[in-house]
């Protein structure tokens, strides 16, 4: 009985730890993005609140919390209120299967640094991330506004198109690791990360991750200059904040997934594993920000062409080639 309680407490502790760290990272990622983006455009980002603008996330939260929570006339109230939550929660849920460190030994107990080591972890990730689209599309539909609806429909078709390539680009990883479990995938990259073994899969996965997180160059659902704000046009206050935080949590989560699948997770010389993991996730996030600063938004037909005519065949051929090579190597 006490054994079970300790296990439960450990899981709870890990959950709280992850929740805290991810939210903290998401909050400061907003600041980091604004800062880096600013410097790349020859301006300073936010630097008024606190030293170097470090209290900016706090100021943002206070501002969003004190704003009026507004529901448009003839909007579908319940769906309108629920939609931002779906986005944020699905983003957070994925973190349950992400291993962020090797098994630790605390007071003689083996503590794996992952909330649940699901043996179908990859499929869990795909399932939960395919739920994320509901937040966007229901938010867009329930707002009872043209712009929101268009943003929602765009987000829907974009996510469905790219989910396919996302899943298919992970098949070579699963083939190489011979397991669906994310811990096993990290273990398989002890010597060489999969990014070097299979750069094509990495490329396809990275592009799909960008599309999945609705970031530039794939931010068509919110395209500020054509759709006002896309699916979150009508949102204000903390509900908008939830959409916003959801996007950045998604960034952290997808960054750690790229790390787990292709960059070798926590493996790395000299530094402690946890630091390596953090460093890699931050590097991927920095890459996201850099891409945002450098690339224009794709046109809608270009987006669909890229997804269906380039990435999908490429990932299919990649599966075939990887399979053949693995078979040849025995």
């Amino acid at each position, binding site marked *: 009985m006490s054994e079970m309680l300790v296990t439960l407490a450990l899981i709870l502790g890990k959950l709280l730890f992850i929740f805290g760290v991810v939210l903290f990272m998401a909050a400061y990622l907003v600041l980091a993005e604004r800062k880096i983006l600013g410097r790349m455009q020859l301006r300073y980002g936010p630097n008024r609140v606190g030293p170097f603008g470090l209290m900016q996330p706090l100021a943002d939260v206070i501002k969003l919390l004190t704003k009026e929570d507004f529901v448009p006339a003839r909007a579908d109230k319940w769906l309108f209120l629920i939609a931002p939550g779906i986005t944020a929660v699905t983003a957070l849920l994925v973190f349950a299967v992400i291993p962020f460190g090797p098994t630790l030994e605390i007071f003689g107990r083996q503590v794996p640094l992952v909330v649940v080591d699901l043996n179908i972890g990859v499929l869990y990730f795909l*399932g939960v991330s395919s739920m994320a689209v509901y937040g966007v599309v229901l938010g867009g539909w329930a707002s009872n506004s043209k712009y929101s609806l268009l943003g929602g429909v765009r987000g*829907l078709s974009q996510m469905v198109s790219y989910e396919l390539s996302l899943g298919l680009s992970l098949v070579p990883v699963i083939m190489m690791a011979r397991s669906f479990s994310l811990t096993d995938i990290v273990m398989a990259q002890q010597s060489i990360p999969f990014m070097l073994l299979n750069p094509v899969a990495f490329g396809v996965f990275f592009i799909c991750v960008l599309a999945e997180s609705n970031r530039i160059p794939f931010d068509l659902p919110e395209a500020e200059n054509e759709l006002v704000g896309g699916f979150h046009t009508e949102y204000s206050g903390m509900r908008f904040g939830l959409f916003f935080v959801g996007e950045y949590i998604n960034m952290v989560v997808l960054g750690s997934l790229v790390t787990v699948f292709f960059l070798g997770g926590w493996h790395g010389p000299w530094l402690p594993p946890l630091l390596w993991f953090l460093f890699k996730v931050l590097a991927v996030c920095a890459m996201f920000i850099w891409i945002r600063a450098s690339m224009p938004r794709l046109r809608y037909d270009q987006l669909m062409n890229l997804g269906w005519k380039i990435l999908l065949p490429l990932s299919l051929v990649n599966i075939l080639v990887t399979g053949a090579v693995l078979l040849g190597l025995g």
Partner: protein
Amino acid sequence: MIATVMFYLLGAVALGATGLAIIQRNPVYAVIYLVKSIFALALIFYLLGAPLVAALQVIVYAGAIMVLFLFVIMMLEITPTSATQCTAPGWAQWSPVLLLALTLVTLTLLLIGLDPLASEGVPRWHASPRDFGYALFKEYALAVKIISFQLSFAAVGAFHVGMTERRRAQLEDES
């Protein structure tokens, strides 16, 4: 024990959500209730030792098929002459179907009751993805091929049906 309780709870959720789904006026709500029902079913699948199928159920049904439904509903509603909201059937239309369903359920119950196997329990068992994969690609390789053919037929068919008149004329002009 926990699994048994969960099964009944999830079964109740699935039934309730499905029941709500079929009486909705607005198809968007029907889809959302159906997604709930699909989630409950996926968890039941997991309890019955099919984790892979449970995950696929969420990915394929909730993540792709229902999203496709939503897409079509929204696409149709964008057009100004919207008529997607057909009238919801009244009590009078439901009653014969209820009778039919009741007969169906009673007959099935009778059949189940006559079967000596039925009252036996489903054992705790669990199929690993590895077993699943071996069976799928060794014993059922032919089925996989047929299914993939069918999917490509469906893709071609959907493309053909979905083509607008203008695009069709354009293609004929080109050729």
